[in-house]
């Protein structure tokens, strides 16, 4: 079980912006009770979806070598709700990034309607003082692949993004460990 709150990326331009979609489905258990008879996708999970969109955009900038954590939702304003059967489209623009962190401006749309605007700030965990990786390396590589970043990802010059060597090495090591 992984904490996926986006289904896939549809656009991804290194260091600039990314677009991801989330299909809201009544097959998601929590919508049965939120609220009974009137399923509404929680706005907290909209923020999480935007954070995943922006966080991976920030993470890719340094080849997924920094540990990116959601540090702060500086602002978030909601305009309508999303319901089962609708698709949320998240767009994240990378405003600033450096080795200490990143700021993204994000939006969520339901069809053509603006659902949320937010500013999300990410911190890069200090390599010297952090005690452990946030994810098992090969699982993180698999997660990123699942979201199709390398299928749609481009550099600002239009070149395809390449899979980082450390992802490939982690996946090979994991396969070797199970004798595959």
């Amino acid at each position: 079980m992984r904490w996926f709150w986006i289904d896939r990326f549809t656009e991804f331009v290194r260091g600039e912006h990314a677009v991801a979609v989330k299909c809201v489905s009544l097959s998601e258990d929590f919508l049965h009770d939120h609220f009974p008879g009137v399923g509404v996708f929680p706005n907290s999970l909209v923020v999480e979806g935007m954070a995943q969109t922006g966080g991976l955009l920030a993470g890719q900038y340094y080849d997924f070598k920094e540990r990116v954590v959601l540090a702060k939702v500086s602002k978030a304003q909601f305009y309508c709700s999303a319901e089962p059967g609708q698709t949320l489209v998240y767009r994240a623009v990378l405003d600033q990034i450096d080795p200490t962190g990143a700021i993204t401006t994000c939006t969520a749309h339901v069809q053509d309607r603006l659902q949320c605007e937010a500013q999300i700030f990410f911190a890069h965990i200090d390599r010297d003082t952090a005690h452990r990786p946030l994810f098992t390396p090969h699982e993180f590589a698999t997660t990123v692949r699942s979201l199709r970043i390398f299928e749609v990802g481009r550099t600002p010059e239009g070149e395809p993004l390449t899979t980082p060597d450390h992802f490939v090495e982690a996946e090979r090591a994991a396969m070797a460990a199970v004798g595959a």
Partner: protein
Amino acid sequence: MPTQEEIFEKVQAALCDALAVDEEEVTPDATLVGDLGAESIDFLDIVFKLEKSFDIKIPRGELFPEDILTDGEFVEDGKINEKGLAKLRERMPFANLDAIEENPNVQDFANNLTVQDMCNYVATKVA
């Protein structure tokens, strides 16, 4: 080069944005932590906002010298020693360190930084 008033207005806007406070609260004498409620993660956010607003680069540790405050050479028993105070004076000529000299507790350091200190710092970067 921006005037002191223009610097204050931009710093005020950055702080209102980062800390979700009203303009009236961001006075020159207001302390970032005590009066405006800034937490540690907010400082990084503020630095980003100032960099963007003034088109400047703020080396980490220059505005908030965490490296000094966590160095055993400069801090003893939770208090900044003479060597540390001298280092802070050297690194932070923009800040009024009188209150810190009176109360050198590391824990209280951030409480003493004011909006005016921040404006003074920005003025050195845009000069």
